[in-house]
């Protein structure tokens, strides 16, 4: 009897461990602002949605809300893709569009997900889609539905089925590099290590990550193939190797090396080889990013006495200062459309995410948090993911470029940091 009770205790302990492990990578979406120009859309619960492992209508709703482009009205009333919606009623509720659909389980265990999008204003069918997926791909199907809605109603490509890399540090001091969906969910571990991992950077083809690992008791740059888990050393020179960043064609990786003394910029063939030195200064030069056309680089240097962001030709040449306000401007990120630069600027004792309109040089702080780090743009240039500190924990947030819509992608069970938003998937239409 005693034995049995003990065994049950152990079993429940294991259950808790499982929960802890799974919830470790879960994220909560908290939209904390209101935008002005949002498309109002009604989302009906899918017919047959109860009992399905993922609630598709809720995932789509969270996606669209987080984008800042939509105001979602939950209808509460099930409508499937075969029904003609009551547009009069929906217009009265203020909806411009409505998403309907159904989900059913096939005999082979897969799910048949069908959706239809209606233009409520014009009373027009905007198209239907069906997805035949295994349970593990229900979230992916949901994000693809969100992308479809986004494209049809805004004319822009959605980023919901793209992926984000980030690093967690557990309370026991273990580090994990994760690859997750754009909502932070469905995280899969790419690397676990007892030593820090920083600066993950997606290759433009979306299949490889470069990052800095301290597993050999010094910072070393690796390139990691996400699908196979195979990785190789890219930069392991004497001193520190850090800040990897890919050229848009994927052929070159910029790194910061201290092998000649000081922290200086170098270019490496992405297959490896001898680095080519790009800067010759007695100051710190680091955190390179390429312009979207690949002709210029932006980087951080304290050559003027304080860390500022500079721009120079990618082949080398004179550097021009880009930031002029404040005495601590670091971590530049460029929007893929080339219009915006996100960076971190210190104001007083606060480190705040800023967005600069590159053409005019006008910049503004867009957060209420005070320990922002490492911004990275979504591939459609409409959202930024960044690391910050909230309620004493390291957390990730997404924000629209105007700062109006923010969502916390914060999980429990560890500090989350070092985000990097991946490119559009090549498999997407």
């Amino acid at each position: 009897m005693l034995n049995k009770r003990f065994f049950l205790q152990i079993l429940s302990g294991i259950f808790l461990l499982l929960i802890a492990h799974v919830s470790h990578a879960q994220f909560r979406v908290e939209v904390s602002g209101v935008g002005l120009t949002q498309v109002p859309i009604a989302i009906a619960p899918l017919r047959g949605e109860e009992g399905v492992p993922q609630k598709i209508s809720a995932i789509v709703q969270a996606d669209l809300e987080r984008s800042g482009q939509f105001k979602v009205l939950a209808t509460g009333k099930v409508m499937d893709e075969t029904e003609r919606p009551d547009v009069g009623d929906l217009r009265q509720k203020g909806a411009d569009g409505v998403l309907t659909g159904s989900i059913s389980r096939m005999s082979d265990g897969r799910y048949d997900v069908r959706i239809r999008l209606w233009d409520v204003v014009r009373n027009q069918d905007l198209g239907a889609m069906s997805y035949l997926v295994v349970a593990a791909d229900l979230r992916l199907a949901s994000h693809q539905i969100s992308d479809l809605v986004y494209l049809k109603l805004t004319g822009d490509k959605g980023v919901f089925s793209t992926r984000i890399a980030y690093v967690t540090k557990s309370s026991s001091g273990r580090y994990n590099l994760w690859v997750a969906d754009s909502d932070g969910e469905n995280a899969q571990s790419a690397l676990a290590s007892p030593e820090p991992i920083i600066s993950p950077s997606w290759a433009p083809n979306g299949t490889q990550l470069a990052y800095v690992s301290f597993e050999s008791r010094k910072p070393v740059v690796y390139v990691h193939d996400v699908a196979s888990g195979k990785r190789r050393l890219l930069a392991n020179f004497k001193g520190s190797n850090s800040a990897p960043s890919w050229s848009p064609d994927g052929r070159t990786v910029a790194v910061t090396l201290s092998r000649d003394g000081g922290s200086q910029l170098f270019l490496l063939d992405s297959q490896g080889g001898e680095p080519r030195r790009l800067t010759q200064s007695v100051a710190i030069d680091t955190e390179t990013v390429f312009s979207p056309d690949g002709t210029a680089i932006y980087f951080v240097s304290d050559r003027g006495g304080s860390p500022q962001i500079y721009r120079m030709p990618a082949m080398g040449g004179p550097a021009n200062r880009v930031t002029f306000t404040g005495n601590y401007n670091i971590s530049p990120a460029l929007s893929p459309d080339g219009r915006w630069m996100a960076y971190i600027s210190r104001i007083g004792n606060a480190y705040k995410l800023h967005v600069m309109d590159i053409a005019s040089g006008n910049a503004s702080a867009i957060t209420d948090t005070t320990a922002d780090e490492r911004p990275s743009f979504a591939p459609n240039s409409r959202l930024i993911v960044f690391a910050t500190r909230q309620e004493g924990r390291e957390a990730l947030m997404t924000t629209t470029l105007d700062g109006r819509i923010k969502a916390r992608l914060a999980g429990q069970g560890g500090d989350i940091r070092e985000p990097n938003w991946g490119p559009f998937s090549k498999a997407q239409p």
Partner: protein
Amino acid sequence: MKKLLSILFFAAIISGCSSNVKLNDVPVEDRSGANPSTAASSVSSLDARGIGSLNGIKPGPAGVANVIYFDYDSYSIKPEFQSVLEAHARFIKADGTRRANIEGHTDERGGSEYNLALGQKRAEAVRRALNALGVTDGQMEAVSYGKEKPAMTGSDEASFSKNRRSEITYR
């Protein structure tokens, strides 16, 4: 029973990681003889941190401090640490096979990469000081951890001042 627990624990870890992204666990030499990838080892061997930190580290000069502290926003060595550096220089020069690893660190404020570069400045300040004392570059390497490995975790000046440092270790 402990054995059963650990087996089930590993099963839980493995099941939590099923995915099409392959898990790549950094292999860490395990000196206890237990292999973390087999279910027969104890739960504590999962945390290889202690093992990793001890891996390949050799003792330095006996009775000599191995940490040099820096002032805020400063990368120059204070005179009070001169005797510490002299002791390390003598120790390194006495045996040509000794290799000193100089790790620069910063406090937690600011970005990871910029702090890595600042920590590098602290490591290189120590490297240059040892250089001036006759230690050749071939016997030492200056690297940086930036803000990633604070000595103290608090967010106050008392902690910050303990984190702005260079550590000398031997391998």
